[in-house]
């Protein structure tokens, strides 16, 4: 092969490799935040209106596949996810949070704590969620739960253990939501998320 031809070939290979790298890198950047799918906000909680839907665009479908595979469409189930507290600070498993609110308008609901890899926190007590069946309402009809790395014997609030030091996600599921809420998920009276005390080191 002549030097000129060799140079042309190496240039062509370089362009192809650079294009592939750019394409892969830009796809990774576009999908690295699965929670950024088109969504509506309710307090600190966001919900993707296209989760599980055949109307989902290319990017939404990919983000849902990464962070919420096998989600149901919003007429069947609404999924709200919080990765920040009400003050806007990222949720951390090493911190304790008080979550309280009124039962949402749905046939059944639950709030589950996940690590930032989208899986449950290991804990010997197998406490992963609070749901419409296990929640105890106070005199004002409100439920409450606490997440954090350690139990507080003085606090009788339902505790969800979040061991370790990593990101924390809270997921609120509403099965068979009220049709008005399914049509406008941003109208949810969202549970409040407030950090309590210092974070574990």
């Amino acid at each position: 092969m002549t030097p000129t031809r060799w140079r042309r070939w190496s240039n062509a290979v370089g362009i192809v490799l650079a294009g592939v790298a750019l394409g892969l890198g830009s796809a990774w950047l576009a999908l690295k935040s699965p929670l950024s799918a088109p969504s509506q906000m309710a307090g600190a909680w966001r919900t993707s209106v296209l989760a599980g839907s055949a109307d989902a665009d290319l990017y939404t479908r990919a983000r849902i596949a990464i962070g919420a595979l096998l989600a149901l469409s919003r007429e069947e189930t609404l999924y709200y996810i919080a990765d920040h507290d009400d003050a806007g600070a990222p949720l951390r498993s090493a911190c304790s949070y008080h979550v309280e609110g009124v039962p949402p308008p749905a046939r059944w609901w639950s709030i589950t704590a996940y690590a930032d890899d989208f899986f449950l926190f290991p804990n010997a007590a197998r406490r992963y969620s609070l749901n419409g069946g296990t929640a105890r309402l106070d005199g004002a009809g409100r439920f409450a739960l606490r997440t954090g790395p350690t139990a507080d014997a003085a606090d009788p609030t339902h505790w969800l253990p979040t061991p370790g030091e990593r990101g924390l996600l809270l997921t609120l599921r509403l099965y068979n939501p009220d049709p008005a809420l399914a049509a406008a998920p941003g109208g949810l009276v969202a549970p409040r998320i407030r950090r309590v005390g210092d974070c574990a080191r």
Partner: protein
Amino acid sequence: MSAARWVRRLLLLLAIAAGVHLLMVWALPRVIMHKVLNTTPQELGAQPGSTAQVYFPPMTDATQRRIVMPSPDLLYATCVFDVSARPLRIRADPRLPGYWSVALYGANSDNFFVVNDRQLAGKPLDLVLVGARGAPEGTPLPAAARVVSVPSNRGLVLMRVLVADYAADRAVVEPARRTLSCEALR
């Protein structure tokens, strides 16, 4: 080297990058679903009663790390469908007072069909899945079954049974989810 050649090279690079980008975003959910559809019953931790067609995974806990955001409040039953050769009949009759549903997912991860206990109003679930071209000629379809045309030949059937307290409800919910059957029509 002329400016025109540099522009051509830049355009070629951007075209390749755009193609790879779109291919990645398009393929990702399909690759993830392909992996799910090819997961074996052993990997799912199938419980007694599982068959080659229907799997009954254990109640979800922190050891479940196959599907993201598993719900710890649901008991699942699942089967993979493939209607490329024959339609598939799906039946279930859990007779539970609480929520249960059966959802169908295509090879691209879309939830293209779901039905729950309230919509069935106490009647058993009876579906026949057929491919986009319909059932093969001569295949008798059960008259009582609802025919669902699927967007892809392969996909997933996922039954969800709400369980508020598994220890207390086990004797009721375990037989209930085992009413799910997925049988190829002959």
